[in-house]
């Protein structure tokens, strides 16, 4: 399904701000995630020190990424797993399809995976005759609604309970569920019942990974529902779809980042389920997948190393940046027209899809800096958005009007006397337009401002003008 596009960000945003259901969901998100994260951080005195350690650790990994990936691969294979290196999304889709075909798969269950979203896996599998079933409740809801996720940890955070009730009623008739459930507990129970059989029926289970552990060749998923575990335990084949920057050296290193992940994401001290998977079923095991595959995606990440965007590869996908973003609070996730949304998406999407189409995303930020202040990995998100703006400005992707405006203004600002002459003229003009009032309801060329705000009339003369006059008056005549 063709959904919102990044290049139409402004139109998308307008639509989103007029959507009452979305606005009430966003208000709830803001009221929920922000205090919960703060409380979790306050409960752990070492929280900020852990953030520092997590950042150092990930910087070390990125500087040695090739070696740690090779070590991961070696240990994963030693444990009976297979690693599929994929340079592009296309490579990853092909690798997954190959594994599914080998397994004779007709249906696959899926745990939540942003990388699977990134490579648009569901549509691809469907086109090849394989039915993907999302099992994370949020992902399941948006799969029924045929929408992309609007948040990296709460993919259906934009849906109200009533909308979910309607969706379930429409889609669950085939399972004999004909009563519209309105209580959250009953809604969740209905999803549980419908999805339970899917786990047993699936030939392949696909999950993402939060971390890859080089030391042991393990993949780690962090979930709350337990769907990821059922997804990977019951089918004969388990595919982990993940990306190269997720590797950490040791179990201790994973532990350090785990300590900041859930606290930043949901405000939990620890998520309900943190699961390490190492290879396939062992001799004597009574359950677990026989085959274990890791699909390791690059898709532009290696090209970010060594650039001004390298720090973005520290991201652990907790969602704290969007939870605290005033722009996200207004426009929600879909407006970004991309898989990754909010501040982290505003930095990542241009890397994945090019700055031309994505130019609005790093531009639509007030640079309030709250994202950086809550990022567990201390990623300087505003700084990187600014770097994208620089690239857009230099490459001509920014609007021509804006570039001329900035150039002319900057040219003037470098010539103080010219600037001051202009300033004196401007304040007098505005003062006259004010006709004795303190503010203007309308102002030529400032329609953006005055559409929803009055514009204050200047006092009448510039500070520098008055200051110099005062100085002259104070100085004794020669």
């Amino acid at each position, binding site marked *: 399904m063709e959904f919102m596009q990044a290049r139409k960000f402004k139109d998308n945003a307008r639509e989103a701000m007029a959507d009452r259901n979305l606005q009430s*969901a966003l208000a709830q998100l803001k009221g929920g995630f922000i205090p919960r994260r703060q409380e979790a951080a306050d409960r752990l005195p070492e929280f900020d020190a852990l953030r520092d350690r997590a950042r150092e650790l990930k910087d070390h990994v990125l500087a040695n990424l090739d070696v740690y990936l090779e*070590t991961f691969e070696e240990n994963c294979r030693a444990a009976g797993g297979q690693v599929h290196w994929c340079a592009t999304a296309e490579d990853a889709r092909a690798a997954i399809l190959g594994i599914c075909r080998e397994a004779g798969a007709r249906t696959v269950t899926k745990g939540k995976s942003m990388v699977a979203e990134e490579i648009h896996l569901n549509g691809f599998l469907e086109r090849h005759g394989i039915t993907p079933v999302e099992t994370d409740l949020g992902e399941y809801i948006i799969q029924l609604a045929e929408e992309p996720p609007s948040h990296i940890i709460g993919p259906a955070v934009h849906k109200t309970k009533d909308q979910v009730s309607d969706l379930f009623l429409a889609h669950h008739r085939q399972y004999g569920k004909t009563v519209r459930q309105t209580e959250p507990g009953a809604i969740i129970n209905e999803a549980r019942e419908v999805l339970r059989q899917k786990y047993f029926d699936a030939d392949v289970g696909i999950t993402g990974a939060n971390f890859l552990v080089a030391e042991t060749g393990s993949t780690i998923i962090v979930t709350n529902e337990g769907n990821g575990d059922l997804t990977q335990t019951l089918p004969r084949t388990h595919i982990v779809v993940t990306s*190269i920057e997720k590797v950490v*050296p040791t179990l201790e290193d994973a532990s350090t980042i785990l300590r900041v992940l859930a606290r930043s994401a949901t405000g939990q001290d620890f998520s309900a389920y943190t699961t390490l998977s190492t290879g396939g079923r062992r001799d004597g095991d009574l359950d677990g997948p026989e085959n274990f595959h890791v699909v390791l995606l*690059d898709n532009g990440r*290696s090209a970010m190393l060594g650039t001004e965007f390298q720090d973005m590869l520290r991201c652990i996908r907790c969602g704290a940046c969007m939870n605290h973003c005033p722009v996200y609070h207004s426009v929600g996730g879909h407006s970004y027209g991309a898989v990754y949304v909010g501040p982290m998406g505003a930095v990542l999407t241009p890397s994945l899809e090019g700055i031309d189409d994505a130019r609005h995303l790093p531009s639509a930020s007030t640079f309030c800096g709250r994202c950086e202040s809550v990022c567990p990995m201390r990623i300087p998100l505003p700084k990187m958005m600014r770097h994208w703006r620089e690239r857009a400005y230099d490459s001509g992707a920014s609007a021509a009007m804006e570039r001329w405006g900035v150039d002319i203004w900057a040219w003037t600002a470098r010539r103080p006397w010219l600037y001051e002459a202009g300033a004196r003229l401007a304040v007098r003009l505005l003062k006259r337009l004010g006709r004795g009032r303190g503010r203007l309801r309308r102002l030529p060329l400032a329609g953006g401002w005055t559409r929803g705000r009055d514009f204050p009339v200047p006092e009448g003369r510039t500070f520098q003008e008055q200051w110099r006059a005062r100085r002259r008056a104070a100085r004794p005549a020669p």
Partner: protein
Amino acid sequence: MTGTADPKRAAVLASIRQSLGRGEPSRDARRELDDRIRRHKPNLIPKRGRGSHAEQVERFVAMAESVAASVERLTRDTDVPAALAAYLRRHNLPMAVMLAPTDWLCDLPWDTQPMLTVNSGRAGDDDVVSLTPAFAGIAETGTLMMTSGAAHPTTLNFLPDHHVVAVRRSQIVGAYEDAWDRLRKERKNGRGFDLPRTVNMITGPSRTGDIELTIHLGAHGPRSLHILLIDDDPA
């Protein structure tokens, strides 16, 4: 798909190296990174992951309860069958349990509970209650660590509606790192150590916040998590 002949593997690694502005790392550089892994030094363990064993046990209980697990203390492991039966009655559950096929649990005096149907093996869709051991209990977040194997099928942790876990006081550790240390020691082999297929770190029962951000228990996994904490090292 394997080995160094894979052109995609070579392409990804080459791209990483090009971006990092260097070639293949030297043997010394690799050795240094290998050593870092072999040393697997903890980074920063919060204070709450430290303290005396008695403190850790109390913290484990408090943290587990804070995430909606229930904890019951037993003085001997032979008390487990009676405690389990009482739990089932208390919650109006069918008198049947699927045990993890470990000698420790299977050899408990189940004959003292004639009303209880006891089976062992992996979990199926019909099993309502499971009883499993844990490898460790981690105090800092009230987390149970489960290791998969012939004696502990992973399905027991996720399919039944009610998961009961028997863990001994001596298995309670402070921090995640302490549990990794124990795991490394227990699973030592010629090359170092090996992990079981699955290590589950479980912190409370299954939950979701996907409906209007309100937390509800029992999304896909167990609706309840009951911990039987057995006092095997009387203080």
